[in-house]
């Protein structure tokens, strides 16, 4: 799951972060993730995994690391299954 997310985000033209060198638990905001880019990230994840993040999950913490993102995505894909 994390690898799929990493490669999805790495290819995204509007998220200028080098995901290849970031550890699963590295803080993406510290690595330069802006609010705008985090919104692009949310939209890309929703499209890739056919999910919709509920409002309660639209927080800074949900998108703060690849591990947190994978947690959130797997919660939502489990729900959908």
């Amino acid at each position: 799951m994390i690898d799929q997310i990493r490669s999805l985000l790495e290819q995204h033209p509007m998220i200028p972060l080098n995901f290849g060198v970031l550890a699963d638990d590295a803080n993406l905001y510290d690595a330069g993730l802006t609010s705008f880019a985090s919104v692009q990230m949310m939209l890309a994840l929703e499209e890739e995994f056919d999910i919709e993040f509920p409002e309660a999950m639209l927080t800074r913490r949900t998108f703060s690391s690849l591990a947190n993102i994978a947690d959130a995505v797997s919660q939502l894909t489990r729900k959908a299954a």
Partner: protein
Amino acid sequence: MDAKTFDSKSLLDSLFENGILFESGIDGLYGRSGAFEEVIERFERLVTRLGAPDKATRIHFPPGMSRATLEKSGYMKSFPQLAGCVHSFMGGEREHAQLLGMMADGGGWTELQKATDVALTPAACYPLYPTIAARGPVPAQGLLFELSSYCFRHEPSKDPARMQLFRMREFVKIGTAEQVRSFRESWLKRGKAMIEQLDLPCEVDLANDPFFGRGGKMMANNQRDQGLKFELLIPVTSIEKPTACLSFNYHQDHFGRTWGLKFADGELCHSACVGFGLERVALALFRHHGPDADAWPAAVRDVLWSV
């Protein structure tokens, strides 16, 4: 303006009846009486006097700004629903005849207009950043500006405190994170003390901007989590939902990065602003002290009319 009833419609009607505001046929666009304008002028002088020790550079901007500047600022990413762009007719005689024909038919005709290079200014500080960036490196002590502009936001409403065209006065500090945060702290104190001097009930609270869509919900949560925006709220049309009359915003290095605002050593600048919603403050004064400014409490008049 009965002190017990607080709702938008009755306040707006009462402002019309008392000749304080004048209807234009469009919600959120109103004529202002001489008395209303005098209150705004007095309040602006009070703001300027409070900020005077800091020696800000004053710039007054028109209500229109460069569309390219608005685009580059990222405004359309966050607030596409509020933006306004000026369109004009640029055709020849043939298109003019077509336009008149379309108008005579009572149908749409505005498609014959094209976007100009002018957008309506959404906040007084938007035109500032590229102007400053073009001047070269920011000095180590930072820069301070006092700005004023009519601003536009497309949000038609019967709430007189939510106008589509309104004036904003702002102080903007460009400097290090520490400089701009201490600027904002000092205005959180000064702003509250100033409103209390005017005998208006108020509270300062954490806030967020009305970012567009679901992505906007996330931006709003981010803004709150990081404590980037505070508002000074005064009950104007509702006690439960008081109106934001002053706002205190820390932009981090958003505008610094966007416009390349840097110190001589190449370090990016941070920025913060304090905004005064002039019509909102005037409405709060009329709402709480009555329609006749001559009959306002002596203490309030002393503060406003002694400047």
